[in-house]
């Protein structure tokens, strides 16, 4: 009798342990999925209409086209034979398990900051998805960039390996934000100037830059005259990151993709941590730049034509004083992305219009109409010059040539 009871108890205990182990595994997988979202792995490793994480998406670079790889657990075509060690080494060191060098289109210079535990969770998640037997497509890089040994030079210049080191003088929240922004978020891949070698130097981190091949300007995250968030409230920042719209501005273009695939899935605590960090790295309010002097009559003619175009086409949504109806119709007055030194984004918005991403918090966004077919180069230049200089905005006028050049900018 006693022994029967103890056997039953043992069996129950064994069942409970298995259940706990399964719980733990599914917890790790769920955490891995969350972290894979934070790293926006899908943006590159899933092709349009393709299977999840089966790769094959073409990534145009100034050096040729790179095709992303299959990271499903297929043993032949994917990473089914990898161990958690292999995966960590790839993320951390930018080398394949056989030691081969990875092109820095894969943001390992950011992923190197990811902790071992987070890397293991992402790997556990990737092991849990459906394997896809789809072979990787070879890259199409021009000579001499097809020689992977060149990556060694790039690594020497631009890669410093090492996990994220918290700054003990800052709060846990700030450090969590820094870990996400600098690591998985790989924000610096776009928001830092890219030099001719396709690298970003540490001292220029988050200082903004034109995204190669896409011709969108990724504004500085440190300068309050660009996308520096020093003057923003935490709520406006978290709104922007989570829903794509905010009282201060709206995301379009490549940043819409980031919100759509990645940031909208982050929980409130992580979003707030990123906001705290981003607000923190903004430089103290910079002195206002010398106000734009309109040097000649040509400029004032441009601005006066711009006002005519604006009142006719733009004011019904953005308001006669550029006040907009935030968050859906963004304000243009005191809007950093309108005023900043590069006029690429405002010109592109006038030409191509755009929709912010559809997110859980903003599932039916309002769109900006494209005006490429309605306005001449002169009118585009005029209206952009007007919104950059009216209502106290401190941008500079733009020329018809600049407007014309962006008509041929790639749209996707």
């Amino acid at each position, binding site marked *: 009798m006693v022994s029967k009871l103890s056997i039953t108890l043992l069996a129950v205990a064994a069942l409970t342990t298995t259940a706990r182990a399964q719980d733990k595994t599914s917890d790790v997988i769920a955490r891995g999925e969350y972290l894979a979202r934070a790293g926006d792995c899908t943006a590159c490793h899933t092709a349009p209409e393709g299977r999840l994480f089966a790769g094959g998406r073409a990534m145009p670079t100034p050096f040729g086209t790179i095709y992303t790889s299959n990271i499903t657990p297929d043993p032949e075509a994917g990473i089914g034979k990898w161990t958690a060690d292999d995966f960590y080494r790839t993320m951390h060191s930018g080398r394949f398990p056989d030691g081969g060098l990875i092109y820095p289109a894969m943001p390992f210079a950011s992923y190197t900051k990811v902790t071992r535990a987070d890397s293991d969770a992402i790997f556990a998640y990737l092991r849990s998805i459906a394997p896809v037997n789809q072979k990787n497509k070879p890259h199409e890089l021009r000579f001499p960039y097809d020689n992977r040994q060149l990556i060694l030079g790039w690594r020497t210049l631009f890669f410093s390996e090492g996990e994220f080191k918290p700054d003990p003088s800052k709060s846990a929240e700030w450090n969590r934000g820094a870990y996400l922004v600098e690591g998985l978020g790989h924000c610096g891949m776009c928001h830092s100037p890219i030099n001719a070698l396709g690298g970003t130097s540490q001292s220029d981190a988050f200082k903004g830059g034109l995204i190669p091949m896409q011709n969108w300007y990724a504004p500085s995250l440190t300068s309050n005259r660009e996308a520096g968030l020093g003057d923003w409230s935490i709520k406006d920042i978290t709104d922007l990151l989570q829903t794509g719209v905010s009282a201060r501005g709206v995301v379009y273009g490549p940043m819409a993709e980031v919100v759509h695939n990645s940031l909208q899935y982050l929980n409130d605590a992580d979003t707030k941590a990123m906001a705290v960090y981003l607000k923190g790295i903004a430089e103290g309010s910079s002195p206002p730049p010398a106000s734009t002097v309109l040097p000649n009559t040509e400029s004032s003619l441009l601005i006066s034509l711009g006002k005519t175009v604006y009142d006719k086409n733009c004011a019904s949504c953005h308001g006669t004083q550029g006040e907009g109806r935030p968050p859906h119709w963004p304000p243009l007055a005191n809007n950093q992305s309108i005023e900043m030194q590069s006029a690429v984004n405002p010109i592109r918005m006038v030409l191509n219009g755009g929709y912010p991403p559809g997110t859980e918090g903003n599932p039916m966004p309002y769109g900006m*109409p494209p*005006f490429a*077919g309605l306005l001449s180069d002169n009118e585009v230049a005029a209206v952009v010059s007007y919104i950059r200089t009216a209502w106290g905005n401190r941008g500079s006028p733009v020329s018809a040539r600049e407007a014309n050049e962006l008509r041929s900018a790639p749209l996707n």
Partner: protein
Amino acid sequence: MFARDAAIAAALVILAAFDGAAAQTANQPPDTMSARVEACTPCHGNKGEGTSDVYFPRLAGKPSGYLYNQLLAFRSGRRKYPPMNYLLEFLPDPYLEAMAEYFAGEHPPLPQPAPSEVSKDVMAQGELLVTGGDAGRNIPACVSCHGPGLTGMQPGIPGLLGLRAAYISAQLGAWRYGTRTAKSPDCMQVVAGHLTEADVTAVAAWLAARPATDNPAPVPKGTYALPFGCGSQPN
């Protein structure tokens, strides 16, 4: 007395509530689909009636299933037109469905056809292909799928009225060359593959010359049987 006070108080509370609601929405864009699809209007017109640009199609009144399929195809890049691909890239399915339903539900009048520049012979060839097809060359009549009145059928087959010759001919050309594709079985690709360039010109000219009708609404699903399988109109 008490009752009157209570009534006044209630009225004030209601007024206050109204005020609050007004204050909340006063500074917001109208909560309507027409405000949400303003990005579509420079090319497709305020109600989807089309614009003076002959390459931009009328959307109004087309079956919502057809419009939704096109929005999905533009979003994924299967149907290639960069300005459309760009606009739709990050919009979720239910929103695209709502957009499709919005334009399907708009019924601005059909335009009167523009005078055609093609010869009578070409016009006659167009009419022959549209209404009777050419069995010898495996070309079905357009009307066998798009309907005797060319108004399309719910939910996936578009009407062909109110389109300009340039647009129709560009689309048939894209089907012929395989740059426009749809879900398998891709019936339009097969049909267009049997057309010559002269056929395309003739069909486009005759379709664009159809006079406006009062009721261009697509007929209900199952009104007639399709001559072959169509991925966009599953049975």
